[in-house]
């Protein structure tokens, strides 16, 4: 019982980190139709910026400033590099973000080296906040969830309740009309790309401290974030939220199962090959999200809440 309880909480926490990352990706996609392959690299850049800033300025400042800087970088990338490519269609943009991911990785290695950097939470967040079925729940995990909820709550309010959000949503479906009404859609796109980058960086400052900050962090978390976005439905924030929690829970709960596949499927085991029956259920956990994605693409290509097919 204890293990199920702590697994649920772990899954929830991991899910929120995935969501923070997936939200920016799906936001940019919904508005600009760009699958940003460099999104996870911006997450990594956020982690490194956070590391560099936390030294002289303290962690709290780093959490605020690093996303700001990466957000501005995102704006600049959109304004001077992505926008000229826009006329040549999505393939050019896709290839550009793909190349950008490598560029950022190499740049990070040049500046900060190939090893792990010591980016961690301040001592105030290292302690445990409360006991959950006998296991301490670290304060930084609670902080992570709180930041995710705050960031995404304000994102929701911004998009759904403000005038700016209205223009953004209108620019999504009717860019020409919005332009004719006197709004600068190019600038809207730029800020949205910047916002997505800032969200990734925010996830990075916190995720980098929670996991590790090193040059391969982008590629490692990048793939799983794509899975989240595809399962949730391309461009859907609610979908990304549900998918992130679903994948977080699925992975942690499968690991908690202490059975071999043969025992888990019971009577059916008679028809399964012996090699397969001997596999531990926990060994399947890492594949589960990808299996789920394949199943989703076959049965419901638009994902949970998507409006168009992947």
């Amino acid at each position, binding site marked *: 019982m204890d*293990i199920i309880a702590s697994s649920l909480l772990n899954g929830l926490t*991991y899910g929120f980190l995935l969501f923070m990352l997936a939200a920016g990706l799906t936001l940019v996609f919904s508005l600009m139709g760009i699958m940003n392959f460099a999104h996870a690299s911006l997450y990594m850049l956020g982690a490194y910026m956070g590391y560099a800033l936390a030294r002289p300025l303290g962690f709290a400042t780093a959490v605020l400033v690093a996303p700001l800087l990466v957000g501005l970088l995102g704006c600049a990338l959109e304004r001077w590099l992505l926008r000229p490519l826009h006329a040549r269609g999505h393939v050019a943009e896709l290839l550009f973000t793909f190349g950008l991911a490598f560029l950022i990785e190499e740049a990070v290695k040049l500046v900060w080296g190939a090893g*792990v950097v010591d980016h961690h939470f301040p001592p105030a967040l290292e302690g*445990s906040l409360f006991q959950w079925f006998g*296991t301490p729940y*670290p304060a930084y995990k609670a902080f992570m969830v709180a930041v995710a909820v705050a960031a995404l709550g304000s994102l929701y309010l911004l998009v759904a309740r403000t005038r700016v959000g209205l223009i953004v949503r209108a620019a999504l479906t009717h860019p020409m009309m919005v332009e004719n009404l006197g709004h600068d859609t190019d600038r809207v796109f730029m800020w949205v790309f910047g916002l997505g980058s800032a969200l990734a960086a925010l996830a990075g400052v916190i995720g980098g401290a929670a996991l590790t900050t090193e040059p391969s962090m982008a590629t490692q978390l990048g793939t799983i974030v794509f899975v989240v976005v595809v399962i949730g439905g391309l461009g859907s924030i609610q979908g990304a939220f549900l998918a992130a929690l679903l994948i977080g829970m699925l992975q*942690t709960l499968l690991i908690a199962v202490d059975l071999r596949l043969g025992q888990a499927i019971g009577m059916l085991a008679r028809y399964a090959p012996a090699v397969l029956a001997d596999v531990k259920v926990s*060994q399947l956990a890492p594949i589960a999200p990808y299996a789920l994605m394949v199943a989703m693409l076959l049965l419901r290509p638009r994902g949970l809440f998507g409006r168009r097919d992947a």
Partner: protein
Amino acid sequence: MNTPTLPTHVPAARFAGIGRLVRRTAAWTTAATLVLSATQAWSQHTVRIAQLEPLSGPFQSQGETNVRTLQAAVDEFNAREKDIRFEVSVFDAQGKAQEALNIFRQATDRGIRYFAGGGSSAIVSGLIEAVNTYNERHPGREVLYLNHQAIDPDFTESRCSFWHFRFDPHVHMRMFAMTSYITRDAAVKRVYLINQDYSFGQQVEASAKRYLASMRPDIAIVGEERHPIGRTKDFAPYVAKIKASGADTVITGNFGQDLVLLIKAAKDAGLNVRFYTYYGNALGAPTAVGAAGIERLRLVGTWETNAMPARMKAIYDNFKAKYPKTDIFHTGVIEMVGLLGEAVRKAGTAEPKPVAFALEGLKTQGAFGEVEMRAGDHQLLAPLFIQTFAAVDGQQVRYGIEGMSLGFRTDAKIGATETAPVMACQMKRPAR
């Protein structure tokens, strides 16, 4: 010798001209180098080693540390010995077997006869096969594979080869040393095994079960877990499972990030267990655990910072002067340089086949005591150390690790011959 002059008529602004210029300069430089080396050849043996390491991907930090350690060892050797000279060419094998084989092909074409590194046991396995095949097809131009880190026991047992030498104690030898220390640690009662899901991790798991059953049958193994290598980011679920099992000790062969994240998650969940590891002194693990690992993080290894002889101190100082935040974590590459140098001197040539025969049975003063390259299976017998994480006190813990004021105290030294495995190799030797 005349200094070659550059042709002056080439207009530097033209690209074709520059290309020609570069080619000519390169040709002249090569010619000059050849003349220079020819004049030295009578007095000096040059040993060219191709070092293949994962310099990109999840195990990059491991590859980079190996490159730096080998460089420090070679620098120290070249400064000390005048008659033998090591030259190392570094290649990025990217942690991929196919890439390692491509590099092997290119390097043999360039006339390199010694190969080291590769990465994980899976990649090294392919390289050994390639070396065996190459030597069969190119008699008189044989190459040697020097294994400094891949510790899959099969390489010196069922799959042993005359052309392969291992300079690092393998999985079973290390586990034997670890278990013989555990026999003295009465607090170990319930053990959890967590390892990477590939040949090396599986062998650590099997080895632990075998030795614990025979040497401490009272210990209960309360769980076995394998996770994907290099891809698990969140170890919290695994730690929850370890906690639920009621284990007091975790044994793991994890290295690099897989160890860092495991230890960090254990710290967060307040998992109060001892960690017996293979690589707890390496690549970020000490930083990740910090003060929470004091008296809890143990390892079995070959490197001993507290008792460095002059030669190791020179290598260590050279390394730390350049890379203060990283540390040497094993002696594999250092033993390789020392033994190979001695074998070249004994053979009187840098030709791989005589050097291989000279290496067989070679006994010498290694990094931290007497070592022996067993003739029967080409496995190095070297002392192993059981070490525990503790604060630097200037006595038992003399140096901090990764720039911290925490380091490793040595609790036991297991002599080179004590861990000697049963010979399980039927070596096919070529004619001399």
